């Protein structure tokens, strides 16, 4: 049962329990006035929390997996610990305020600070109002990635994050593709080509795993926070740069390959200047190809989830028709080397 459903039956009780959680974290009296859902996935829910701390309005975000449900990937407690740790390493993230315990009876999750800014990438990528912020995004994102990757695997060993070499990532995608009974010739060519061009290991580091324009909160002066750390793992640093540069996340700003806001050479140089590894441009392009293949397979997977009745929705069904977009992207790369 989610906090939202509990709210329906006993609106005050869940809010009061959440207020006690917050009082554990900070001194003084806390009231929770409203908890409103922002988005709902199958296994995770995000809420905006309007709290009052010592008479002052206090805006927070609650991310929670409802009690009784299991999380397929990273536990919320690990996510909170990781988010705190990368924050200490200088990466811009929302500050974690409190982690829920089973006794709180609110589900598995944590509360973090609300970060002001735009989360809709098409808006900050295109609107004139964000021209200044966009100009700062190259340096901000390059620095964030360099700092994340500099943390290293040893420093997060206790969090037991999955280790995924590029080839392991490719094999995992192939498995999903086969499970979906995929029959896409362009994907087959990409699988074959990446089987040759991606390294079997390399210098693995902590990577965000889902670093794309849609997971960045952008304020007036640039990057305000990197969100959604659920797919963080020990992997190849270029995975993050390739995924950020995947055409899908440029939202039509194709002349700016990195995230829709930066050119490749300038971004690689800024990443290296911030302490990131030397970027091999050819290999970075292979990771862009992996990005398009990954999004294509994810679209197929959403179609399969709809057909199986697991998550039947017109949105899921329609997303499966975006497979042809990734086919076009891959084909363009196969023909011209880069998109």
């Amino acid at each position, binding site marked *: 049962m989610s906090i939202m459903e509990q709210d329906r039956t006993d609106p005050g009780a869940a809010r009061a329990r959440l207020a006690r959680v917050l009082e554990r974290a900070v001194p003084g009296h806390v009231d929770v006035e409203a908890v409103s859902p922002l988005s709902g996935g199958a296994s995770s829910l995000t809420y905006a929390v309007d709290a009052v701390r010592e008479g002052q309005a206090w805006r927070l975000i609650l991310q929670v997996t409802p009690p009784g449900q299991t999380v397929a990937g990273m536990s919320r407690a690990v996510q909170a610990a990781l988010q705190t740790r990368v924050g200490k390493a200088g990466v811009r993230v929302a500050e974690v305020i409190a982690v829920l315990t089973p006794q709180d009876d609110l589900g598995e999750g944590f509360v973090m600070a609300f970060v002001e800014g735009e989360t809709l990438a098409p808006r900050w990528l295109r609107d004139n109002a964000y021209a200044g912020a966009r100009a700062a995004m190259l340096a901000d994102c390059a620095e964030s990635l360099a700092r994340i990757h500099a943390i290293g695997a040893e420093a997060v060993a206790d969090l037991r994050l999955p280790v995924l070499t590029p080839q392991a990532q490719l094999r995992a995608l192939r498995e999903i593709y086969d499970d979906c009974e995929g029959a*896409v010739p362009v994907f087959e*060519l990409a699988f074959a080509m990446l089987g040759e061009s991606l390294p079997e290991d390399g210098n693995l580091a902590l990577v965000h795993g889902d670093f794309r324009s849609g997971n960045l909160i952008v304020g007036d002066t640039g990057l305000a926070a990197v969100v959604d750390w659920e797919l963080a793992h020990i992997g190849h640093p270029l995975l993050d740069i390739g995924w950020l540069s995947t055409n899908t996340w440029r939202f039509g700003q*194709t002349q700016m390959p990195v995230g829709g806001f930066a050119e490749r050479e300038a971004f690689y140089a800024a990443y290296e200047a911030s302490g990131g590894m030397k970027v091999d441009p050819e290999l970075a392009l292979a990771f862009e190809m992996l990005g398009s293949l990954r999004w294509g397979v994810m679209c197929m997977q959403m179609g399969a989830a709809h057909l199986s009745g697991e998550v039947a929705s017109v*949105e899921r069904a329609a997303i499966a028709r975006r497979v*042809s977009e990734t086919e*076009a992207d891959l*084909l363009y790369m196969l023909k011209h080397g880069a998109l």
Partner: protein
Amino acid sequence: MRSRIEAADLVEAAAAFLKEAESELSGRTAFHAKVAANALAIVVRELREHPSEAEAAALGALLPDVAAEARVAEACARIRAGEWTAETPGLLDALEAGVRARLAVDNPRFSTLQRLRGA
């Protein structure tokens, strides 16, 4: 004057209604109405353009002895077995014809479709 209503005409009319209804809805329902209208627009284009026939026809030059409906699967099998690669003469062009036909149905305004057409 044409009076026979084809399947595509019916679906097009339903899509137009959903677009109209969207303005009276809000939040999640409005969003799903928009997605549903877009889905119906895909159906309309598919009924009129038959993209899988175009794809099978494009692969016909490479697989003349394979039945049209089995050509995509056969192409997959040959690539997977390493018999065909990106360098196989005519393969990328044939695949591009199929992808362009399907993308013209799924999302005709997609940027890479324009770039493929211009290249």
